[in-house]
């Protein structure tokens, strides 16, 4: 050793492994406009497809006349349900066990539903074509209000299943009923409510919203008649699932289907499902023999390809007078729209909503969810959250605040009193989950100390007095939220999508010069996998992250995996990566032992190679081991250095966090100002703190948008009123608050590197923090629960309803 020998710290730093704020490798191409998104894919002779869509929410389709459209210059074909019937594709299976019309078959069930697909030489000609297709409709009464869905006289929406008394998830109670899903002990819970000293009951609604990534859903389908092969470029969060689904419904051999998800411009759940545009483009390519591109416009995106939430949650909590919770009873009315295309693991019709007991030690609970059809777009995706987890977190976090108000207790104190205690982990919840690890008291206390929670409450009390004295028209709200997520779907014992177990995978192949390629079954949509996956490998096997190329999204080369959504990439694929790297390391150790002429057990791992225990100068680095693995492996050992791992997680992971929001609201205008937002996240082991903080910023911004303004609203005729960015709230840099991030680290005990996942936590925890702040602001004026979204107009309405605005001023 001499002065030039790098220190251990220098060697570790050079790897850019786990825990470092590695700059992203993706950014080199993205900052120069050199990404390749689906709309950037241009194939020779490529055609464009576009949809004729229904102006009605509910109508019979009397006739479709494409004659004039076919005379429009550039228009080559008009595909209708009749065309699709010849290949048995007029309807397609949904992820939730229902079927969905690909193109209107006899009737339409929501506004903007796909009616016909026009194929033309370019996108302008396709647009001319759709305007020339003549469709005759006979309007039917629309069903918009989910609370009217199961009325005896409610119109029959789904004529295809109106007589079926059994659905994919059990008995149906009504022609517009989809499923009833119950969990928990009803009798025990009823008994807890009977003897409760205090009970609360509130209808807590979570409005219909949309994930709206900046890039819409799109695809290019290219069928090669000679080879009988179908290539699909698409905005797919789960490319392998798409390939299998195409194989099953198009009856093509799976090896002849090539699904490629190139760079994706945000997903947030929008790009998990299969949409009519994909099917129609594939059929159009088969019919015309040319590649066909389909690109949604924004209105189509907001009004047809999925929605999120639309849960109406009647929430009851039983408690003792001193604030110990004794029971939870929740009934959800779930509005699924015209088809049940909810993107959940197949056995979970309401996702993991049974995480609704949250972070609290409820001795008993009962949950019932009724899914119903309405004349609205289908969907029900997990918009930046694990399946229905954000609805559950909102439900319990509002519920706890409502209980605190009734008890006259501080909401943070109520939470501290009821948290699952550290020694209770692994914790079995009343609704069936096994929480892996947590230290809620430490996180909550740290959050309260950082923001000076006691000081904020004192300030609020003073401001309330000033308001009562008429000295100010501003009210102050402090929103507390403590969420527990359930992510990392999932263990094959309870998670599958259409029978495909929800494992994930990694394949690592090292090259002789100490570099390599790693491929996974996940698919980044902005999460930075190319950067972070290489960091895990760098730490595990001592090859610099810069020397590992990460590839995802090509089903021909990537090992089979279930994709990226529900914060599953790190909990599932992240584990596969670590275990795959460890297989390589085990072989490397055998090579090192042979070279260093010692027994394997006499070696110890030292950052980037193996060292003989007690003989620090006897060392063999991974770079050299890579060369030896190919060119002179030990006798009897096959050459090469690569491995594949498929990981079936033993359990989910349970990230958690404490969020506090401070907001001021002017009662006369309803205008609000988020003064402070503090977010403490515990996602277990942290792989890249820079990326974690970035994800928290983004998720909080989406939470802000949802709580304070987003809504896909329908009028009584079923017209969508949130169909553009004029009407659907996406915050700009001006409205978006400043975010403060913090963390604690409670590793997952069952995950190979202890990581839990983080990308969706801020959306899950953020929404109740904002909503609780608004409700907390109004609570001293007599409000118990004000529904989201809390935009200026609704805040003003709330103030008016509470009688704090003079009639003359309000008029």
């Amino acid at each position, binding site marked *: 050793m001499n002065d030039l020998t790098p220190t251990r710290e220098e060697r570790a730093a050079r790897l850019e492994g786990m825990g470092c704020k590695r700059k992203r490798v993706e950014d080199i191409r993205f*900052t120069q406009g050199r990404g390749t*998104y689906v709309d950037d894919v241009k194939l020779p002779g490529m055609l464009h497809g576009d949809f004729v869509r229904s102006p009605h929410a509910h109508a019979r389709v009397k006739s479709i006349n494409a004659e004039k459209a076919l005379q429009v210059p550039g228009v080559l074909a008009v595909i209708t349900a009749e065309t699709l019937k010849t290949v048995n594709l007029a309807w397609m299976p949904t992820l939730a066990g229902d079927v969905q019309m690909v193109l209107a078959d006899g009737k339409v069930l929501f506004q903007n539903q796909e009616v016909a697909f026009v194929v033309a030489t*370019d996108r302008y000609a396709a647009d001319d074509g759709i305007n020339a297709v003549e469709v005759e409709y006979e309007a039917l009464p629309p069903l918009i209000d989910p609370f009217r869905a199961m009325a005896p006289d409610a119109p029959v929406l789904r004529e295809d299943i109106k007589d079926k008394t059994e659905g994919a998830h059990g008995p149906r109670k009504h022609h517009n009923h989809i499923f009833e899903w119950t969990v928990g002990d009803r009798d025990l819970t009823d008994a807890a409510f009977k003897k409760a000293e205090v009970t609360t009951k509130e209808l807590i609604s979570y409005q219909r919203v949309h994930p709206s990534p900046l*890039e819409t859903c799109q695809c290019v389908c290219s069928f090669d008649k000679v080879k009988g092969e179908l290539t699909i470029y698409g905005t797919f969060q789960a490319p392998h699932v798409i390939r299998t689904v195409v194989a099953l419904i198009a009856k093509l051999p799976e090896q002849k289907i090539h699904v490629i998800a190139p760079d994706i*411009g*945000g997903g947030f759940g929008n790009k998990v499902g299969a949409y009519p545009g994909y099917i129609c483009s594939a059929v159009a390519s088969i019919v015309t023999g040319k590649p066909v591109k389909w690109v949604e416009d*924004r209105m189509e995106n907001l009004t047809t390809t999925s929605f999120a939430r639309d849960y109406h949650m009647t929430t009851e909590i039983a408690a003792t007078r001193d604030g110990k919770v004794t029971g939870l009873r929740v009934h959800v009315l779930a509005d699924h729209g015209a088809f049940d295309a909810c993107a959940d693991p197949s056995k979970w019709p309401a996702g993991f909503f049974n995480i609704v007991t949250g972070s609290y030690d409820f001795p008993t609970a009962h949950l019932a969810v009724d899914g119903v059809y309405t004349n609205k777009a289908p969907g029900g995706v997990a918009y930046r959250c694990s399946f229905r987890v954000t609805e559950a977190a909102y439900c319990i976090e509002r519920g706890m605040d409502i209980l605190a108000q009734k008890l006259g207790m501080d909401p943070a104190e109520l939470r501290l009193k009821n948290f699952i205690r550290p020694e209770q982990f692994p914790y079995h919840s009343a609704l069936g989950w096994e929480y892996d690890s947590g230290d809620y008291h430490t996180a909550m206390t740290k959050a309260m100390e950082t923001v000076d929670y006691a000081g904020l409450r004192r300030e609020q009390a003073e401001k309330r007095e000033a308001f009562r004295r008429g000295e100010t028209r501003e009210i102050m709200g402090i929103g507390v939220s403590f969420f527990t997520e359930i992510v990392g779907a999932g263990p094959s014992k309870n998670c599958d999508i259409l029978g495909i177990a929800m494992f994930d995978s990694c394949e690592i192949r090292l090259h002789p010069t100490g570099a390599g390629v790693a491929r996974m079954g996940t698919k980044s949509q*902005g999460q930075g996998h190319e950067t972070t996956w290489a960091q895990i490998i760098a730490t595990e096997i001592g090859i610099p992250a810069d020397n590992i190329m990460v590839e995802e999204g090509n089903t021909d080369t990537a090992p089979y995996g279930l994709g990226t959504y529900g914060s599953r990439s790190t909990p599932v694929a992240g584990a596969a990566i670590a275990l795959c790297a460890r297989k390589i390391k085990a072989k490397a150790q055998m090579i090192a032992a042979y070279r260093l002429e010692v027994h394997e057990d006499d070696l110890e791992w030292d950052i980037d190679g193996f060292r003989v225990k007690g003989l620090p100068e006897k060392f063999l680095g991974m770079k050299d081991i890579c060369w030896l693995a190919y060119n002179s492996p030990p006798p009897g050992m096959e050459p090469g250095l690569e491995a594949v791992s498929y990981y079936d997680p033993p359990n989910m992971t349970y990230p958690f966090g404490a969020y506090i929001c401070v907001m001021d609201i002017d009662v006369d205008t309803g205008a609000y100002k988020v003064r402070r937002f503090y977010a403490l996240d515990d996602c277990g082991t942290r792989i890249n703190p820079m990326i974690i903080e*970035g994800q928290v910023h983004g998720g909080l911004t989406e939470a802000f948008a949802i709580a304070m303004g987003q809504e896909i609203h329908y009028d009584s005729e079923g017209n969508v009123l949130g169909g553009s960015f*004029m009407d659907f709230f996406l915050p700009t840099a001006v409205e978006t608050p400043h975010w403060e991030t913090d963390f604690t680290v409670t590793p997952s005990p069952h995950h190979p590197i202890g990581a839990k996942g983080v990308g969706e936590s801020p959306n899950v925890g953020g929404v109740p923090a904002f909503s609780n702040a608004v409700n907390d602001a109004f609570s001293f004026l007599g409000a118990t629960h004000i529904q989201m979204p809390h935009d200026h107009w609704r805040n003003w309405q709330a103030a008016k309803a509470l009688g704090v605005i003079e009639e003359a001023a309000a008029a």
Partner: protein
Amino acid sequence: MAKTHVTMTINGAEVEGLVEPRTLLVHFIRETLQMTGTHIGCDTTHCGACTVDLDGMSVKSCTVFAVQVDGAAITTVEGMASPDGTLSALQEGFRMMHGLQCGYCTPGMIMRAHRLLQENPSPTEDEIRFGISGNLCRCTGYQNIVKAIQYAAAKINGVEFQEAAE
């Protein structure tokens, strides 16, 4: 449909083409010229993913017809890095400050920030936030985009970048 001949300068190079009167500038750039760095996010002038620099102004190229820009000088994101591949101060700032995630808004955001810094070389945080409010980002929450622009401003102005405490 009858086509019109247009000529313009894009990233310093003269280009020409035949366009329909209704052809949008963004489609001329993306489809005819096959420069796909400029993105389309909303079709309605809200999101700014298609922002380019047109004769010294930021414009959303989904709301300009190609025939309107005959004779104009346009800069797109492809024209931002040096010919030798060195990233511009803004591109470097976006990478160093983690000012992007999915990358879809990034070209428009960088083009808008480029013009903003020409108009106001030392903007305050509020001025930056207002200055980029025609560009939507769904991933970052803007906080690191603001830092990225501050980083670039400092670099262009030759002063040391001081990251504000959280």
